C-alpha cells in the first residue's frame, strides 16, 4: 500500500513561504512526477513527504495514517537521492543491507533480498566493491537497490538521473519505468526535465513557486494545458505563444500552437514568413520561422528531409482544432 495524501500542507523558511497551502492525493501504485523549473518547490515538497523537512502547517497522511510528525524512519518510504548518497565506507552489499539491518531483519532474509535485488539490478558481480569503484550508473543502481530491498510503501526519487550522462539517462529512465511496472509500488519522482516527466509518469504535477499549476496525465497536460505556464512548460520544443491581433482573431488574449501542429508549405498558407535557423535531428527538423508582424519567431516541426534553407520564404498554417486559447489571466478558454 502507498496512498499519500497532503492536506493544506505549507512550508515556510523563516518569513518566506515556499509552499503555500497545497492539497494533493497520490494513489497507491501511481507513478507521480513533480516537475517544474528550479526553485519551484518540487524538491521541498518531496522532502516534506519524506519527513526530512518539517511541515509548517497542514497534514500528511500515508495509507490513512497521520504521518505529519513521524520521523523519516517511521514513514516506510525509501528515497533515491540525486547524489546517490551511498555510504562510501561500506561495500555495495553492506549499502544495500543497511536498511534491512536497521529494521532488524535476520541475516538469511537479508541475504536473500540482497541477492534478489542485485540480480534485478545487474549488481551481482559488484556486491563486494566500494561505491568509489563504481560508475555513475552502477552507483545509481545501488541506490535503487538500497531502496527496493526494504519493500517500502512508496519510493521517492529526487532528480535521480541528473548526474548521469545523456545516454545513460535514457537507459536508467527505462529501468525505473520497468521497475515500476514490476513492483507496482507508488513512486514519486522529482525532475526539472519535462521529457522524463512525460515519458515516465502516470500523473504529472506541474509546480511553480510552490503552487500546483496543474495535475493530470501526460497527455492531458499536453492536450489541455490549464494555463500559459503549463502550456509553455510541457512539450519540446516549446509551444508557440502568440499575442496581439492574431490571438484576437480567435477571441483570446494569447493563442498557443505546438510546433508539430503547424503545416508548412512553400506555396500558400495562413502566415507568411522567412526561414531562420533550422535544427536537423535526422528524424525531424525544427525551423524557426520569422513571420511578418510577430515579435517571436515561430518554431515549426517538419519531417527530417524537408528542403528548406535559411532565408527561404514559407507559408505556415496552424491546425485550427489544435489551437489553444488563453484569456487575459493566462487561463485556458475551453
Amino acid at each position, binding site marked *: 500500500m502507498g496512498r499519500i495524501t497532503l492536506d493544506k500542507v505549507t512550508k515556510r523558511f523563516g518569513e518566506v513561504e515556499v509552499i503555500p497551502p497545497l492539497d494533493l492525493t497520490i494513489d497507491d501504485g501511481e507513478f507521480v512526477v513533480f516537475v517544474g523549473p528550479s526553485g519551484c518547490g518540487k524538491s521541498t515538497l518531496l522532502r516534506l513527504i519524506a519527513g526530512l523537512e518539517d511541515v509548517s502547517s497542514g497534514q500528511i497522511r500515508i495509507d490513512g495514517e497521520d504521518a505529519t510528525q513521524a*520521523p523519516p524512519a517511521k514513514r516506510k518510504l525509501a528515497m533515491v*537521492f540525486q547524489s546517490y548518497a551511498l*555510504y562510501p565506507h561500506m561495500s555495495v552489499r553492506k549499502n544495500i543491507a*543497511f536498511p534491512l539491518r*536497521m529494521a532488524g531483519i535476520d541475516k538469511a532474509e537479508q541475504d536473500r533480498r540482497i541477492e534478489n535485488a542485485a540480480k534485478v539490478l545487474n549488481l551481482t558481480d559488484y556486491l563486494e566493491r566500494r561505491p568509489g569503484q563504481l560508475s555513475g550508473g552502477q552507483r545509481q543502481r545501488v541506490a535503487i537497490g*538500497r531502496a527496493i530491498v526494504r519493500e517500502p510503501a512508496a519510493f521517492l526519487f529526487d532528480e535521480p538521473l541528473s548526474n548521469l550522462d545523456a545516454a545513460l539517462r535514457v537507459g536508467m529512465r527505462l529501468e525505473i519505468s520497468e521497475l515500476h511496472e514490476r513492483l507496482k509500488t507508488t513512486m514519486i519522482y522529482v525532475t526539472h526535465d519535462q521529457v522524463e516527466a512525460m515519458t515516465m509518469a502516470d500523473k504529472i504535477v506541474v509546480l511553480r513557486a510552490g503552487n500546483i499549476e496543474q495535475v493530470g496525465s501526460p497527455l492531458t497536460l499536453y492536450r489541455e494545458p490549464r494555463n500559459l505556464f503549463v502550456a509553455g512548460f510541457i512539450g519540446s520544443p516549446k509551444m508557440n505563444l502568440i499575442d496581439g491581433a492574431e490571438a484576437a482573431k480567435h477571441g483570446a488574449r494569447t493563442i498557443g500552437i505546438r510546433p508539430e501542429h503547424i503545416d508548412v508549405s512553400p506555396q500558400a498558407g495562413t502566415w507568411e514568413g522567412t526561414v531562420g535557423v533550422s535544427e536537423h535531428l535526422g528524424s525531424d527538423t525544427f525551423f524557426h520561422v520569422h513571420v511578418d508582424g510577430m515579435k517571436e519567431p515561430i518554431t515549426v516541426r517538419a519531417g527530417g528531409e524537408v528542403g528548406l534553407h535559411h532565408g527561404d520564404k514559407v507559408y505556415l498554417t496552424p491546425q485550427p482544432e489544435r489551437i489553444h486559447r488563453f484569456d487575459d489571466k493566462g487561463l485556458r478558454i475551453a
Partner: protein
Amino acid sequence: MARAVTPQKKALWTVLAWIVGLIIFFPILWIILTSFKTEATAIADPPVWFFFDWTTENYGIVQDRSDYFRFLWNSVILSVGSTAVGILIAVPAAWSMAFVPGRRTKDILMWMLSTKMLPAVGVLFPIVLIAKWLNMYDSYILLIGVLTLINLPIIVWMLYTYFKEIPVDILEAARMDGATLRSEILYILTPMAIPGIASTVLLNIILAWNEAFWTLNLTTVSAAPLTKFIASYSSPEGLFFAKLSAASTMAIAPILILGWFSQKQLVRGLTFGAVK
C-alpha cells in the same frame, strides 16, 4: 600554466626548509644532547657539541630518585582519559552544530573558542578552592575533568569542521533507511569521519600531555603527570641541567614517538576535506 621549478630553485628551497626545521628542532636536540653529559660538561662554556664522554648516568639517577613510570602512567591516564571524555561529549555536539544548526550556532562556537582566551590563572584560585572543597585535589577525576574542559572547544571545533565536509545527503539517506539518531552517528557519521576524529584524538592527547599550568597546580603526588616530573628537577636543588634534560627527554620521548608514527594521520586529518 605550470610554474617552472628549476633544480636550482628546488635545491635552494630544500636548504632553506632544512635550516628552518633545524632551528625549530634545535632546543629539543640540545636537551637530548645535554641529557647525556655530566653536570660539568652541561654548563661548559663554550658549549660542547658532540665530542664529550657520553653517559647515561643522568637517566639512572633520575629514575632512582623519582619514579618515572608512575608519572608516565599518570600522563597516559590524564591525556587519554580527558581526550576520550572530550570526544564522547564533542561528537554529538559537533553533529548538532554541523547538521542541525540553529540561529545561535555560530555564536556558541565563538563563545566556546573565547573561553580559550581567558587567562587560566584568572580562575586558578576558585578552581583550587572547589577542588579542595570537593575533596578532589590531586585526583584523576579532577584533572581529567579540567583537561577535558580546557580542550573541549578545540575538539568541538575540529570535529565540527570535519563533519561539515560530510554530505548531508548521506545522513539523510541513513534516516530514510530507518536509522535512529544513535545508529546514524555510530554507523554512518563516525566511520566516515574517522580520519578527522583520529587527528583530533592525536592532537588532543598531545595537548593534554603537554598541558602544564593545571597539572602543576592541581596535583601533588598521586595524579601528578610528567610535567610535574620535569618541574621537580628545575628548582629545589639549584639547577642541574643534565638531570633536568634527562627528565625532559624522558617526558617528551613518548609524545615524540607518537607524533613520529602518526604524522601521516595528523597531516591527513588536518587537511581532510581540502580536496574531494
